[in-house]
Every structure is written in structure tokens, then in C-alpha cells.
């Protein structure tokens, strides 16, 4: 029973981070900034769900398999983010910059 609750809490945290990641994906202004929520929040979300499954499952061989899944997820997520950013940089896609605006509203 206690194990179910802990597993549920981890899965809920994971879902929360998935929601945050998606929100970030929608709110960010350009490709490069969108990479940040998608490579980070989604990774932690998925890892948290995997952790929840591991707790639910208890000590067994499947635990090691889940650890492997988490490791490969971390690797592939980082590599994907890198590949997308790299190709965007190679195509000279300009990245979004904060507008420099002074106190009285004049552009710097």
C-alpha cells in the first residue's frame, strides 16, 4: 500500500514535469530556447515515471532494466537536442535575443 502511494507520487511528479516541459515548448520564442524545456523537463519527467515504476515493482531484475532505459533516455535526449541545435546553427538560423530597452522606453 505504502509502495503504491510512493510510486503514484513519483508518477505524478513526472507528469507535472511533462506538463511544464510542454508549457515551456509552447511559450518559448524560438528554436534554441525551445530545446531547453524539451531536453530537460521531459527527461526528468520520464525518469521520474520510471522511478515510480521501479518503486512499484520492488527489487527484481526488472529494476536493472528500468535503470538501463533511464540511461539510454538520458543519452538519446541529450544527443537529439545537440543534433537539432547543431543543424540550426549550421543553417545560420538567428537566435532570439532580448530587446535592449532603456528605462524611458528608448531602444539602446
Amino acid at each position, binding site marked *: 500500500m505504502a509502495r503504491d502511494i510512493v510510486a503514484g507520487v513519483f508518477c505524478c511528479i513526472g507528469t507535472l514535469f511533462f506538463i511544464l516541459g510542454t508549457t515551456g515548448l509552447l511559450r518559448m520564442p524560438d528554436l534554441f530556447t525551445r530545446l531547453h524545456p524539451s531536453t530537460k523537463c521531459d527527461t*526528468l519527467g520520464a525518469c521520474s515515471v520510471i522511478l515510480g515504476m521501479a518503486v512499484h515493482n520492488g527489487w527484481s531484475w526488472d529494476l536493472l*532494466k528500468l535503470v538501463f532505459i533511464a540511461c539510454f533516455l538520458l543519452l538519446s535526449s*541529450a544527443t537529439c537536442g545537440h543534433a537539432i541545435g547543431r543543424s540550426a*546553427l549550421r543553417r545560420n538560423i538567428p537566435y532570439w535575443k532580448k530587446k535592449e530597452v532603456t528605462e524611458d522606453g528608448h531602444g539602446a
Partner: protein
Amino acid sequence: MNIGSRELTSGRALRSKLLLFVLLLAFWIVLTASLALHELVMGAVCAAFVGTLTVALLGRALDPCITPAVLLRLPVFMVRLVWEIIKANIDVAKIIIDPRLPIDPRIVEYRTYLPGDLPRTVFSDSITLTPGTVTVELEGDVLNVHCLCPYHEEGLAGLEALVAWLFGVKGMSQGEEDG
């Protein structure tokens, strides 16, 4: 050149092959989830086959950076990296739910002292997974890192030290000269 160094390199190659075999066998054992004899024999055959194929395709068994010492340090490295990732996520999550969206992105160049392809790859992957930074280009020893906020850049040196610790890199001129 001389016989001594050739024997050394062939001994290193043999050790690297053995390590690859052990890793593949361990992976097999995890996947089959059993220690029965016939499973182990089958796993050994498969590990030897995949290992031979790897050497035939890549010309070497493992990256020379991968040694048993590195593999022993890997779990500690993973735990510390995961801790960094959790902090990164909370940080980025705060930025995302802030109604003003306080971002000031920029691309910075970072010159790393880590030698070899594998440490640099691990470093850039770690950067991508930690606070507001994504490696967008890795050329030689220069990384182009896209930072969400200027202060995210400050975390890079600590991460570099962590990767240097994983691979046992001491200082700037540790790597052997090639050629």
C-alpha cells in the same frame, strides 16, 4: 617503433576487448534476468560474436578512455549528474511558469581542456542535461553553448571538473601526443 611499446599497445587492446566482452555479458545477464548455465553460455557466445563484430567494424573494441576505474566511478558520476539535472529542471521550470518569461539567451564559446572525443562528448551531453544550457556545436576543443540566462554559463566549469574527475584527467597537458 620498438617492441616494448607494441607489446604494451597489444596488451591494452586485449584488455579493452576483455572489458567489452564483460560489459556485453553483463548486459545480457540483465536482459535475460537469469543465471542459469545455458543462458550464460549463450550469452558468452553472443558477447564474443558482438565483440568480434565491433572490433571488425570500428577497428577497436572500446574507446581507450574506458577503463575499469572509469566504470567504477561512473555510478558516482551518474548520481552527481542526476542531482545537477534535478536542480536544472527546477530552475528551468521556474523560468517557464514565470509570467514575464525572464530569459536572455545567448550563445557562448567555451574552450575545454578535456582531451579525446569521448570525454568531450560526455561533457557536451552533460551540459545539455544541466541548467539552461544546450551544446549546439562541438568543434575540436571549442563548444558553442546556448545559455537561457547569462548566469547559467557559470555552471560549466564545475561540470567540466566533474567530467575530468570521471576520466581521471588531471590538468591541461595530460594527454599523450598523437603521431
